[in-house]
């Protein structure tokens, strides 16, 4: 009896340990230059539903994807060089739902305090038009992502979404700091059907939040 309980307990512990330490694989952003001119290019897309190819368990969950060697990868852990510029391009395919805190509609912490949306330079968006955000609190980087209009004619249902679908292209550049692990997250309540829409993909690594591994 005692042995059975011990074995059962150990199995539960093992299951919890494996579950708690399961992380998506890190994707290294391609870099160019060296020393103080070193920079990295990080290309992301946001999708309303990640689809069964990338997430058989949660195909309906909203998610970020990252580009690696020309392919879209389901990961939110990105490896970036320290003390470098990071040029970010985000293809935004999801619709808008609005920010709970309108303050987060302003761009902050990027080079020049701006981003471009479809080529147009912007410092802030209408908070109601926000679909997601890309925020790295420890680096002071706050970027709101404007959503695709609800009247879009060709919205993308499941990832991966090609450029033929309705989308916005958002670009910005920020500078990394010293080496370390920095978390990033979306601040828009976009996890439909969960508590305050901040559950599910908002609280599971690999969807709407992750880490920047600055090395």
């Amino acid at each position, binding site marked *: 009896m005692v042995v059975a309980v011990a074995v059962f307990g150990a199995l539960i512990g093992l299951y919890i340990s494996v579950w708690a330490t399961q992380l998506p694989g890190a994707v290294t952003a391609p870099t160019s230059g060296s020393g103080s001119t070193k920079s990295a290019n990080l290309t992301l897309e946001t999708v309303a539903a990640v689809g069964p190819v990338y997430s058989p368990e949660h195909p309906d969950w909203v998610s970020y994807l990252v580009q690696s060697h020309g392919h879209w990868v389901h990961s939110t852990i990105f490896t970036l060089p320290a003390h470098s510029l990071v040029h970010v391009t985000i293809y935004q395919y999801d619709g808008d*739902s*609005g920010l*709970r805190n309108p303050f987060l509609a*302003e761009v902050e912490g990027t080079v020049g305090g701006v981003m471009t949306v479809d080529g147009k330079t912007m410092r802030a968006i209408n908070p109601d038009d926000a679909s997601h955000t890309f925020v790295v*609190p420890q680096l002071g980087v706050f970027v709101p992502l404007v959503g695709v209009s609800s009247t879009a004619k060709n919205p993308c249902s499941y990832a991966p979404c090609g450029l033929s679908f309705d989308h916005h292209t958002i670009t910005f550049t920020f500078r990394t700091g010293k080496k370390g692990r920095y978390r990033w997250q979306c601040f828009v*309540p976009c996890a439909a059907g969960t508590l305050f829409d*901040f559950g599910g993909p908002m609280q*599971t690594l690999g969807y709407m939040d992750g880490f920047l591994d600055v090395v």
Partner: protein
Amino acid sequence: MSEPNHFRRLMLLWILASVIATPLVVVLLGPLLSPGTGSVQASGHQTDTTVLAGVATPVLLLVVLYLAYAVTFFRQEPGGVLEGPAIRSDARVQTWWIVITSTLVLALAAFGTVELVGDGAGAGEGPNPAFVPSGKKLQVQVIAQEWAFTYRYPSYGGIETPHLVIPVDTTIEFHVTSLDVIHSFWAYQLGVKADANPQVDNVAFVKPTKEESFSIRCSELCGIWHGYMFDTGHVVSPAAFQAWIKQQQAVFAPVVHDLPPYATTYAPEPSGRGS
């Protein structure tokens, strides 16, 4: 050889140890106790903890010394009787024990209450604080959300910023609230801890007394990034504060017209996607 008077010996030992240790605890350990002396309230916490430690020292010594004394002098001899004398109650000892411990606890309760009444002790006092420090105050609103704090300064156009900077020697009136789940605002070196509940205005007062940085943490388990919900605040001179707030007003000008009018609580929309 006659049996020594164990009670007298133990009491002498205890008094001697207490006379030596209690001042050492108060003088040497006291200034090292948390949360430091970054504010009037933090200093109050440190004083309270020092008093508690000072009062607890003789009690701890009595217990430890009695244990050590008993182990040393009441040890059973090898080959001796297996059973000691029967334990009997002693009404006098019991009475003294009850009187002394009750007096200590009640005195500390009275002391703690007086300390709390003085300045609120940096604790969240709810929307209608009972203990309000006198004098002019600077209102700062702390807005918690999954997973970051932002701050509004209603007397400076209601601007919102992700940074907490406050002037030294000024009473700060924190209004702590949340936009979603329960969080808790903990400014460690300032001795401030106030729960951030949605739809609740939790008021806490603090008067920082020295220019320093202080750590801010959420102290209520609030989700996946709870452990990352930290920040560093700064206490600066009044002149530096004025310069900083002016700079923040300029930086966050593009979004200030989108902020809701300043209120003690918010019921933000959307409450969820599609709502």
